[in-house]
């Protein structure tokens, strides 16, 4: 699903202005590795909790007698929670510190998971999933920031990438664990509760592990606690580098503060509004590719198309594998292809494979043959989506906005993105039931075409551009004269 929260990197003058000694080797590097391992449990949980319904839904639906609409509600309530968690998580992390926020989120993960596992009925489950969603959204906003702030500048990108991979890896893990549990213990009552309870392990690992990790040095400096920041830096850098880095971190903390300058009244400026519309469109269309309908309902789709549930839940693993493979390719392509080319190619491929899925339901008779053909086109869709639009959306959102309104503008886009995620999750099951697979995927294909046109007309190119220069050029072109 690739829902990270990357920081823009090119504005930080770190690489040019600050000539820093080598980050060090041995103990500090090992310590950094521990921090990354522990913090990315947040990403893993994010992936697991969003992916686990894919497989848990069918036994759950039988247990509680859900309709296609209430199935949607059970899935979507997490995304609505995540929309709020993503927007307010950053605020809490700024006020209370990254470490405290992640610890708090780990507690919410544990409470939400227990609530879901022990839910006596559908209404309770929907509420518990909303709470769990707050933790998911909060983790999506906080963990990459923490990682980026603890990592030395030359490693920042790879640390954040690692979190992205853990998110998709968490989904894949959920698919595999579901398939194993279902095929070996499918006869047990309420087996879905066992699928959900697995998430407790990484949540507890995150909680206990984070207790022993340091606070972000950048946040400490933003609070004027320079001594403590230096102590943290000495933990994760060579002594010379730690001393030298205080100036860089102080500079970055000041830049961060600037990012939350702009607000609602700045949307009255025409060129800023134009960028926000583009950003909102990018988030809106990313979710309407239907990527998450596959990630949440893949097993059900295959069952509908004619597979036994035990086989469908195994077949669904392919979605997770191709998602992970796609995102790995996507991360590589980000540095190679121009953004516009990559976006437009992505949406063209998405439209193609959605059309093929829709046609399969018409031309191939229902049964295993149809199901396997659908799966083949689904994984091709997942692969091309995660290889292009998935990671690119987040990168683009982190690049296009003027620095001084970035925090507010990204907040709007991320909120819209999660809410559209919820809308797709809510309405996909009723649509499949009401209109069938052909119409539903035909609709996704149509939306991908609209997205293609929208981006072809409006999207500016940012690759290899100095972002401050991009800002001036865009303003000169679209500002009021």
């Amino acid at each position: 699903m690739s829902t990270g929260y990357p920081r823009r990197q090119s504005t930080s003058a770190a690489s040019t202005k600050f000539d820093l000694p080598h980050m060090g080797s041995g103990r500090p590097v090992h310590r950094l590795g521990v921090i990354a391992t522990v913090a990315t449990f947040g990403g893993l949980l994010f992936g697991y909790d969003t992916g686990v319904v894919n497989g848990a839904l069918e036994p759950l639906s039988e247990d509680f007698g859900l309709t296609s609409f209430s199935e949607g509600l059970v899935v979507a309530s997490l995304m609505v929670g995540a929309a709020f968690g993503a927007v307010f998580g950053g605020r809490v992390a700024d006020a209370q510190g990254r470490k405290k926020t992640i610890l708090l989120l780990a507690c919410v993960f544990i409470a939400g998971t227990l609530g879901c596992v022990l839910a006596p009925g559908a209404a309770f489950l929907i509420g518990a999933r909303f709470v769990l969603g707050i933790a998911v959204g909060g983790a999506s906003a906080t963990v990459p920031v923490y990682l980026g702030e603890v990592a030395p500048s030359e490693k920042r990108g790879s640390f954040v990438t690692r979190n992205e991979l853990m998110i998709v890896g968490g989904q894949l893990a959920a698919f595999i664990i579901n398939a194993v549990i279902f095929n070996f213990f499918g006869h047990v009552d309420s087996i879905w509760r066992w699928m959900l309870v697995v998430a407790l392990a990484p949540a507890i690992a995150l909680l206990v592990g984070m207790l022993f990790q340091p606070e972000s040095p950048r946040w400490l400096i933003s609070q004027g606690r320079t001594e403590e920041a230096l102590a943290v830096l000495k933990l994760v850098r060579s002594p010379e580098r730690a001393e030298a880095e205080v100036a860089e971190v102080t500079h970055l903390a000041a830049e961060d503060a600037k990012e939350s300058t702009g607000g609602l009244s700045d949307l009255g400026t025409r060129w800023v509004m134009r960028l926000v519309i583009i950003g909102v469109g990018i988030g809106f269309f990313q979710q309407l590719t239907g990527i998450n309908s596959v990630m949440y309902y893949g097993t059900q789709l295959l069952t509908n198309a004619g597979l036994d549930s035990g086989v469908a839940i195994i077949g669904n693993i392919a979605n997770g594998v191709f998602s992970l493979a796609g995102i790995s390719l996507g991360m590589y392509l980000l540095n190679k292809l121009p953004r516009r080319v990559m976006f437009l190619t992505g949406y063209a491929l998405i439209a193609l494979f959605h059309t093929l899925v829709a046609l399969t339901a018409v031309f191939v008779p229902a049964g295993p043959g149809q199901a396997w053909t659908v799966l083949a086109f689904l994984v091709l869709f997942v692969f091309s989506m995660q290889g292009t639009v998935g990671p690119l959306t987040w990168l683009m959102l982190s690049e296009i906005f003027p620095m001084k309104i970035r925090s507010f503008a990204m907040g709007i886009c991320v909120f819209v993105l999660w809410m559209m995620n919820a809308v797709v999750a809510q309405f996909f099951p009723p649509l499949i039931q009401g209109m069938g697979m052909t119409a539903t995927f035909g609709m996704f294909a149509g939306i991908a075409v609209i997205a293609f046109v929208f981006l072809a007309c409006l999207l500016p190119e940012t690759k290899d551009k100095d972002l401050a220069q991009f800002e001036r050029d865009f303003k000169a072109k679209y500002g009021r004269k």
Partner: protein
Amino acid sequence: MSVAVAVTDSPEGRLALESAVAEAQSRSTGLLLINLTLHDFDTEEVPPGLEVTVINRSGRGDRDPVAAVIDEIDEHPEVDRLVLGLRGRSRVGKAVLGSVAQRLILRSPVPVLAVRTDRTRS
């Protein structure tokens, strides 16, 4: 004594700055340039030949431009005039959005000189 000017990212903002420069010159005072745009002013954008203090908007505390301007005027007691740019707004625009200029006029502790871009004068 000093003239303050609120410079927004628009033709009104540029006109306000021009008018404020003229005002400061005619009264032989300094200029407090409160930059409400989303970029920091560099030296080329600062009008020459005057004693200019540039205040760039920065941080969450400056999110509301009205509060940012009023705070600066409070911090600079020598300011005795505020220059603003106005433009005609459609009925829909007025209904949907609050006006920064209107709120500034109502809250400013010093007299306001308002200049309009779309004026027609024979």
